[in-house]
């Protein structure tokens, strides 16, 4: 049947994943990757356990996304939902930061800091512990299933799953008090969503980091498509210097199909010089590549710029007594210069250029503006909505009453008293739902709950003579706080007082 043909393993629609068995490598970039992995994993696992004293009315977790109360705590910063633009600002900064990094050093994010890379790296390392390095892994993969192989497979997947559980497990601590949740989680009393989250993240970590690995980077991730478009000829990328490497020493003795891929004039240069290239075709660079590609085929979407091939080739170059850097970080511009025999520009020169500086200026500008406004923002806010139905009510003494829904946000983690008063509306008196016309006055005192929004219905009465729509202010003045300080700063909102049209006025 044709339909069944489609899902048969031999169908031409299928491509079985080719096993990638990256070989262990050591060198400068590998050590840099270890460092980045150590730092990022430490941040990830430790952050939820940091404490930060905010007084008795707010949680003491340094970084907490409190979905139930719609608060985001980050050390001394507390974000309320209406201040979500700070999060938007962070996202914009992350986007521009990606432009900045990509235009400077290509896909360095992919190679070093991307969670997919970090966890895959961890999983690859676990695999080496259980199965041995590349050659042993390939042999093991081909070997028939024996108790010994089964034991190794079981150990590997058990450790992978343990790591995956720890990954999902750490995530939930960002959303609730970590020590409490940890106890609740192991005693089985945590909310269902916590278990579900851990379950989903365990599955995705295990599948994406352990089983799919480079398939995620090549087929699933959108970044490679975007990032390759953001690179320019001045960006540092991992480059095989074919003008120096070709023709490959070993390749000279046999036909070299790869030569067809390179511009003929470059081959001619090497051939004319009558010398062999530096590449000895040892395939070390291919063996260490976590995405299983051959960088000598030129820049390609599968390359995550992890530079492990640089480490591998540098070692080979040292052994055969040639200068390092046959594979190296280089810009496409440098490639042209170097090919013609010139010297590459110093790295600083490629990093500091107008494009990166402009990105950095925008990035730092947004960051600076956000820091400034974080320092300046008021922790008391009043917003007033006029009750529109009815627009106004005439009282028996002939005066006009409007009613308002007032929201007072006390964003400090302590109870506060404020005086709500009317300014700019002659003869106005006010009372709240809890009071009455008899107790009305020019202002009313309200006690605000700590770190909460207090809503009240406010009645304001004023004489009927006046314009149809008078503008006035409702002001909330904190009753404590050093005068002139940020805490004592009043909050105010612009309000309209509605009266009957003049013809109707009685």
């Amino acid at each position, binding site marked *: 049947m044709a339909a069944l043909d489609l899902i048969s393993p031999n169908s031409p629609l*299928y491509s079985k994943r080719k096993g990638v068995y990256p070989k262990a490598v050591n060198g400068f970039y590998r050590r840099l990757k270890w460092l980045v992995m150590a730092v990022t994993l430490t941040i990830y696992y430790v952050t939820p356990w940091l404490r930060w004293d905010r007084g008795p009315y707010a949680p003491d977790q340094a970084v907490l996304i409190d979905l139930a109360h719609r608060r985001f705590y980050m050390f001394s910063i507390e974000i309320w939902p209406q201040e979500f633009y700070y999060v938007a600002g962070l996202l914009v900064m992350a986007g521009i930061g990606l432009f900045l990094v990509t235009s400077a050093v290509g896909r360095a994010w992919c190679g070093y800091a991307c969670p997919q890379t970090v966890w895959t790296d961890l999983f690859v390392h676990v695999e080496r512990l259980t199965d041995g390095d590349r050659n042993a892994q390939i042999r093991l993969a081909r070997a028939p299933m024996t108790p010994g192989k089964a034991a190794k497979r079981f150990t590997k997947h058990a450790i992978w799953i343990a790591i995956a559980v720890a990954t999902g497990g750490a995530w939930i601590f960002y959303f609730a008090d970590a020590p409490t949740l940890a106890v609740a989680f192991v005693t089985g009393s945590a909310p269902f969503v916590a278990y579900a989250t851990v379950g989903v993240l365990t599955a995705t970590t295990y599948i994406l980091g352990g089983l799919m690995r480079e398939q995620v980077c090549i087929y699933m991730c959108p970044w490679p498509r975007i990032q390759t478009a953001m690179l320019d000829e001045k960006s540092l990328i991992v480059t095989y210097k074919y003008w120096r490497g070709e023709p490959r020493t070993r390749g000279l003795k046999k036909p070299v199909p790869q030569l067809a891929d390179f511009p003929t004039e470059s081959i001619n240069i090497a051939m004319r010089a009558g010398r062999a290239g530096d590449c000895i075709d040892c395939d070390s660079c291919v063996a260490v590549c976590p995405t299983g590609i051959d960088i000598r085929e030129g820049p390609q979407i599968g390359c995550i710029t992890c530079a492990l091939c640089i480490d591998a080739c540098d070692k080979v170059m040292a052994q055969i007594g040639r200068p390092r850097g046959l594979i190296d970080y280089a810009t496409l511009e440098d490639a042209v210069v170097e090919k013609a025999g010139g010297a590459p520009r110093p790295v600083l020169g490629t990093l500091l250029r107008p494009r990166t500086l402009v990105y950095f200026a925008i990035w730092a500008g947004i960051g600076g503006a956000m820091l400034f406004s974080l320092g300046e923002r008021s922790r008391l806010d009043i917003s007033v909505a006029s009750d529109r139905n009815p627009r106004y*009510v005439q009282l028996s003494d*002939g005066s006009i009453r409007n009613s308002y829904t007032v929201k007072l946000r006390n964003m400090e983690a302590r109870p506060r008293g404020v005086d709500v008063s009317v300014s700019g509306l002659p003869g106005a008196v006010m009372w709240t739902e809890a009071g*009455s016309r008899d107790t009305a006055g020019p202002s009313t005192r309200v006690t605000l709950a700590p770190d909460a929004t207090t809503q009240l219905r406010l009645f304001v009465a004023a004489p009927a003579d006046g314009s149809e729509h008078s503008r006035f202010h409702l002001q909330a003045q904190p009753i404590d706080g050093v005068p002139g300080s940020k805490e004592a700063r009043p909050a105010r909102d612009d309000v309209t007082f509605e009266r009957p049209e003049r013809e109707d006025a*009685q």
Partner: protein
Amino acid sequence: MKMTKRIDAPTGTETVGHEWDGIEELDTPLPRWWLMIFVACVVFAIGYVVVYPAIPMRHSATQGVIRWNSRADYQAQVAADTARRAPINRAIAATPVEQLPQHPALLRAAVEGGRAAFKVHCVQCHGAGAAGSVGYPNLNDDDWLWGGDLKSIEYTLINGVRNPDHDATRFSQMPAFADILQPAEINQLVRHVRNISGQGKPNAAGAALFAANCAACHGAEGKGGREFGAPNLTDGIWLYGGDEAALRTTITYARAGVMPRWNARLDPVTIRMLAAYVHSLGGGEANPAAVLAEGKVDGGA
């Protein structure tokens, strides 16, 4: 555009056979997991069609093997919600309306329930914001014909106003003075009423007529009386208008607004909730002194 398939030498992959400006497209096979997921989605979709209502037929869609439908879902939710609210409804039923303010949670529930019931039963006359219109009282203001405390409002709601089929209804009847007074006298009365409400000049003849004909119900000073639902004529609020023409019509032909008795249509809890809501609109009055004397203080006003 040429259409010849061939094997691309460097990659060993077949081309799809298109060629544009010398650029050819490789027919690179999909990763196996990718196709697996696609097949799994197709299988899921077929299962979904079997289990849930899906294919439109002539009168209704196929029912699906579990016979799920949104209406049953909705009814289950309504039933669950009714059950959830039953305890608070029972508590409201057991609490006399004037004591609701002592139970803030009950009062809040009653006001919210009343807000919903008002939108169904009362907006036709009193308007969505309870602001009324000519002939239909504004329930937001502080002027009440029959009393504005919780108990009086509830009584009005239960028994109605000038409701013909109920003895306990609020009742009063202003005479039509067309049969009693001359038009000139009615004009004098109009000017007097305008005067006591601060809208015109004193008028001795009108005052005398008022004392003789109107004071019995509206009081000597025209401040009205709640035992007759007689409006206060000295304030700024007019149910039928306070200009000369409206007053002349009122005195000549009399007015007699009618409100149905709601105990014929609503259960006591809903009526109590409506009373709480109307009372909360901003003009509600404190409970009468007798209730206050028992130490039951009205929190809202």
